[in-house]
C-alpha cells in the first residue's frame, strides 16, 4: 500500500531583543557565564512581577504580518503550569486562548510547485533556563530563563520531509529578514517539533500522530521525519498500530526514541496571567508595523526576477541572506553594471570565500563599487579573466581600488597586435609539431598554443586576440 505523510510543525524562535520578555536582564545567553544575566524577576524571587517587553510584542506582530496572519488587537497572557527545575516560577507565561497572530500562511516549494502551508498561530512566551547534569548533581543556568520566545504553529498540510525542510528554511529567512531572530538552530535560537502521522493514500482521515521533539538542525528535521515515516509504515505493515507518543530524535544513532506516552498527557491548567493586564493593540499601531515591514524574501525574489532578469537558482542563493541581497543590489544598480555578471561573481567567487572563511558579507573588504569596477575592467578588455581573479584576490584580502591593483601588479591586458604577433611567432617557432597539427585541421590544438602564449605574456594577453593571431599566422 502507498502512504501519505501528514506533518504539522511547531517552531520556537528566540527573539533578538535587548532585554528579556518580562525583566530588564540582557536576553543574550549564548556562551555567557552562567547566572550572570538574572534578577529577582527571572529567577522567580517571591514578590517579583513581570513587565511585558514591547519590542518582543512588535517583533512577533511583524512576524505574524510577514506570515500573512491576522493580528489580534486584544491579547491575553496565560500561565502554563508545570513543575520542572528549569522553569523558575513553576509556570511559563505564554498565550493560550488568544494568541497574538492567527490564520496565516507561508508559501513553500513542493514537488508539484508552489504550495501554501497554513500558519494556525504565532504567539509569544518565555524561554526556560538550561539544565546541566553532572554526575549525581544537576546545575541550572537561568540566563536563558525569560528570554522572549515566539512559537509558530502550522496546520497539518506539510506532506514530506522536503516540504518540512523548505518550510523551516522559509521561516528562518523571514525571521532573519525581520531582524526578529538569528534563526541559528545550532545555537538553539530556533527549535523545532514535528507532529507526524501517515495514512493510506487517498484517505481523508488522519492517522495517529507522533510528536517528535529535539530537532535541533535542518538535517535533523529531514532525517527524523524520514525515519519516523518509515517506522510508522513498518508498524502498520506488520499489523500493528501507531501509538500516540512523544518521541525524541537521537541525532547520533539516527533514531526516534519514545520519551513519554501521551495517554498520561499533562494538564497545564492554563489561566489568564493576573500579574499582567490584557494588551490592547491599537489598529493604528498594527498598521504602522505592517507598513514598516522590510521587503520580505518572496517579494524580493519576484523583484529580482523582474528587474534583473536573473534565473531562479541565482535568486534563491542571493536572497537567502538579506545582507547578501543588499550587497548584490548595491552593485547591480551601479551605472554600467551588468546584473548577471554581478550575480555570477556574488554567487561564485564571493560566496566561495564567505563560506570557506566563515565571514559575513558585511565584513567583506570588497565593496560593491569595487566589484563593479572590476567587472567593468574585464568588460572593457582592460584585463582578462585570469587577471580579474588575481585582482579579486587582492581586493578580498586587502581591499582597495581595482584599477590601482591592475596598475601596481602590471596586469593590464596586452591587446597590442604587434607585441602579441611577436609572442605568437615565438611560440609557433618553439612548437612546430603543434603548428603542423593545426595546419592539418586539428583546431583543438589552438588552445595549447594559446596557453603557451599566455605563459609567454605572464597571463596578460588578450585571449581573443591571441587566438585570431595564431590562426592568422598559420593561415587556417
Amino acid at each position, binding site marked *: 500500500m502507498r502512504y501519505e505523510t501528514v506533518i504539522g510543525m511547531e517552531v520556537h524562535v528566540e527573539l533578538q531583543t535587548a532585554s528579556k520578555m518580562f525583566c530588564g536582564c540582557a536576553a543574550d545567553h549564548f556562551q555567557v557565564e552562567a547566572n550572570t544575566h538574572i534578577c529577582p524577576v527571572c529567577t522567580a*524571587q517571591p514578590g517579583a512581577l*513581570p513587565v*511585558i517587553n514591547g519590542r518582543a510584542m512588535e517583533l512577533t506582530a511583524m512576524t505574524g504580518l510577514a506570515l500573512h496572519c491576522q493580528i489580534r488587537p486584544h491579547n491575553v497572557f496565560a500561565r502554563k*503550569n508545570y513543575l520542572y527545575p528549569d522553569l523558575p516560577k*513553576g509556570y511559563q507565561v505564554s498565550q493560550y486562548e488568544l494568541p497574538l497572530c492567527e490564520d496565516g500562511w507561508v508559501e513553500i516549494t513542493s514537488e508539484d510547485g508552489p504550495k501554501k502551508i497554513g500558519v494556525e498561530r504565532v504567539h509569544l512566551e518565555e524561554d526556560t533556563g538550561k539544565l546541566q547534569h553532572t554526575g549525581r548533581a544537576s546545575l541550572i543556568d537561568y540566563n536563558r530563563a525569560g528570554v522572549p520566545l515566539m512559537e509558530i504553529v502550522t496546520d497539518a498540510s506539510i506532506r514530506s520531509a522536503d516540504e518540512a525542510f523548505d518550510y523551516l528554511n522559509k521561516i528562518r529567512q523571514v525571521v532573519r529578514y525581520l531582524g526578529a531572530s538569528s534563526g541559528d538552530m545550532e545555537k538553539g535560537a530556533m527549535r523545532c517539533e514535528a507532529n507526524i502521522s501517515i495514512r493510506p493514500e487517498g484517505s481523508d482521515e488522519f492517522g495517529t500522530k507522533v510528536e517528535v521533539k529535539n530537532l535541533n538542525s535542518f538535517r535533523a528535521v529531514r532525517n527524523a521525519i524520514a525515519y519516523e515515516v518509515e517506522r510508522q509504515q513498518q508498524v502498520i505493515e506488520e499489523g500493528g498500530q501507531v501509538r500516540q507518543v512523544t518521541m525524541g530524535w537521537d541525532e547520533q544513532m539516527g533514531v526516534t526514541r519514545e520519551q513519554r506516552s501521551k495517554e498520561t498527557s499533562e494538564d497545564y*491548567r*492554563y489561566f489568564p496571567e*493576573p500579574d499582567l493586564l490584557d494588551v490592547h493593540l491599537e489598529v493604528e499601531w498594527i498598521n504602522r508595523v505592517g507598513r514598516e515591514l522590510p521587503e520580505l524574501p518572496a517579494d524580493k525574489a519576484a523583484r529580482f526576477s523582474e528587474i534583473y532578469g536573473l534565473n531562479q537558482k541565482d535568486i534563491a542563493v542571493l536572497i537567502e541572506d538579506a545582507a547578501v541581497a543588499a550587497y548584490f543590489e548595491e552593485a547591480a544598480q551601479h551605472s554600467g553594471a551588468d546584473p548577471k555578471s554581478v550575480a555570477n561573481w556574488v554567487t561564485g567567487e564571493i560566496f566561495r570565500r564567505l563560506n570557506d572563511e566563515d565571514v559575513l558579507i558585511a565584513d567583506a573588504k570588497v565593496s560593491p563599487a569595487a566589484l563593479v569596477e572590476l567587472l567593468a575592467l574585464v568588460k572593457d578588455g582592460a584585463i582578462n579573466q585570469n587577471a580579474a581573479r588575481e585582482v579579486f584576490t587582492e581586493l578580498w584580502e586587502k581591499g582597495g581600488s581595482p584599477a590601482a591593483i591592475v596598475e601596481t601588479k602590471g596586469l593590464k591586458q596586452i591587446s597590442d597586435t604587434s607585441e602579441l604577433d611577436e609572442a605568437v611567432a615565438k611560440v609557433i617557432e618553439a612548437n612546430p609539431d603543434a603548428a603542423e597539427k593545426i595546419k592539418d585541421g586539428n583546431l583543438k590544438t589552438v588552445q595549447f598554443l594559446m596557453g603557451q602564449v599566455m605563459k609567454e605574456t605572464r597571463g596578460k594577453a588578450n585571449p581573443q586576440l591571441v587566438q585570431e593571431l595564431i590562426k592568422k599566422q598559420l593561415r587556417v
Partner: protein
Amino acid sequence: MALNEATAHELITRLQQREVTARELVQATLDRIDAVDGQINAFISIDAEGALTHADEIDRRRAKNEPLGPLAGIPIALKDVLCVRGGRTTCGSKILEHYIAPYDATAVAQLRAADAIIIGKTNMDEFAMGSSCENSYFGPTLNPRDPERVPGGSSGGSAAAVAADETILALGTDTGGSVRQPAGYCGVVGLKPTYGRVSRYGLVAYASSLDQIGPISKDVEDTALLLQAIAGHDPRDSTSIDVPVPDYLAGLKDGIKGLKVGLAQEHFPAGLDAEVATAAQSAAATLADAGAELVDVQLPVAGHPEYCIGTYYLIAMGEASANLTRYDGVKYGHRAEGDLNLQEMYLRTRSEGFGEEVKRRIMLGTYALSAGYYDAYYRKAQQVRTLIRQDFEKAFTTCDILLSPVAPTTAFRLGEQTDDPLQMYLNDIYTASVNLAGIPGISVPYANGADGLPIGIQLLAPPLEEAKLLRMAYALERTTA
C-alpha cells in the same frame, strides 16, 4: 502618655520641634516589644540594632537641618510578606524560614524614601492564608485586647503590634479582608486601597488579582499619612494604576456634609449578630447626624456571601496554586534532606515546608483550574466577579460611600474555628467582595461588644476615591471619640 502610645501625626510634630528624638521613640517601641511580645507574638523578626542606627542617622540629619521625609523617625512594622533587602522574609512559613530577600519591595523603598524606620517584620497566617493568624509556622499571635482571642488575620501581627503599642505604624496586606478584619478585631484602623493604587512589587503573592498592601494605624489621620507615602504608580507592577496621587490629608477634616452613605439590606441578614448589626446602624445614624445623607442601596450579588465567598476562594486559591509553585526547594527556601530524586525532592520539600491550610488551598486551587473543571469553577467565578463589580458600580451611582460591618462577630477564641475551615472562611463575608471589585475599603473601630472586644465598621468607596473614604472614616472616628 508614653511615646509608643502616640500617633504618627502627633509624633511627627514633636520630632520636628525636637521635643523627642527618633532614638527615644524607637527605643520606646523596642522596650514595649520586649515587655509584651513574648506573650502577644506579633513579631517574627525584630531589627533593634538596625532601627536604632537608622534612628540615630535621622536625628543627626535633623540636627543638621537636612531635608527629611514625611515619616522621618516614625517606627513602622511590616507584615512579613513584604520583601526587605538583606532581611528575612518568611511569609509565616517554614518553607521560607531562612529566606533572605535580595531586593526591597517598592512600598518598602517608598517608606525608606519617607525616612520611616523599619523596626521588624510581623506575624501572619502562612502566605496570608487565614483569618485568625493561627496558621503561622511561628505560632499564633494573640489579640492584645484579650489574649484568649485571635487578632484576626492574615495581617494579625501588624494589627496586634499597633493595638499593643509595639509600633506606631504597620503595613499589612489584604486579599479578602486581611487588613480590615484584624484591624476590626484589634480595634485599630486598617485600609485596603484600590487595587493598583499601591505597588505589589515585592509583596509575596497569595492571589495576584486581589492582593493589596494597606496601612494599619491607631487613627485615620495616620492611615492617610501612611497611604500618602506608599501610593503611586510603579512601572515594575503592570497592574499598578498610572494616575496621580491626591493629597489625602488636604480635605481629611472637611466634614461629610452632603455625602451620601449607602446601606445595603443584604449586609444585615436575619441571623446577623445583634451587637454587630446595632453598631453598624448606630454608626450610620451618627454619620447622618454629622451631615451625611443615608440611602438604601441594593447589592443583589455583591451582598450575598454565597456568591462572594465561593467566588473569592475559587479565584484566590486558583491563583495561589500557581503562585506557590515556585517554592520547590530548587532556588531558595526549605529543601528536604536526603538522597532523593526530583519527584521525591518536590514532594517532601513541599509536604514539610507548607502548613495544612496552605496545602488545602493549593489542592483546591489546582482542582479549580484543572481541565474539565475550569469552566465550572474558575471561569464561572470570574463571571460572577464581573457581576460583583457591576453591583458596586451601580450602588455607587446613588451613594458616595457604603457602610457595613467589617466582620460578622467580634474576635473569636483561639482554636474556636481551626477545625472548621468553612466557618473560618465566613469571616470574610463583608470584606472579600471588596477585593473582587478592586475598590477601596477601610475598617474603623466604632464600638465595643459586651465581651469588651472592639467592633469595627467598614466603609467602602469607588475606585481611587480614597480621599473621600478617609474623610468619611475621619468623621466616623470623631463620633466615637
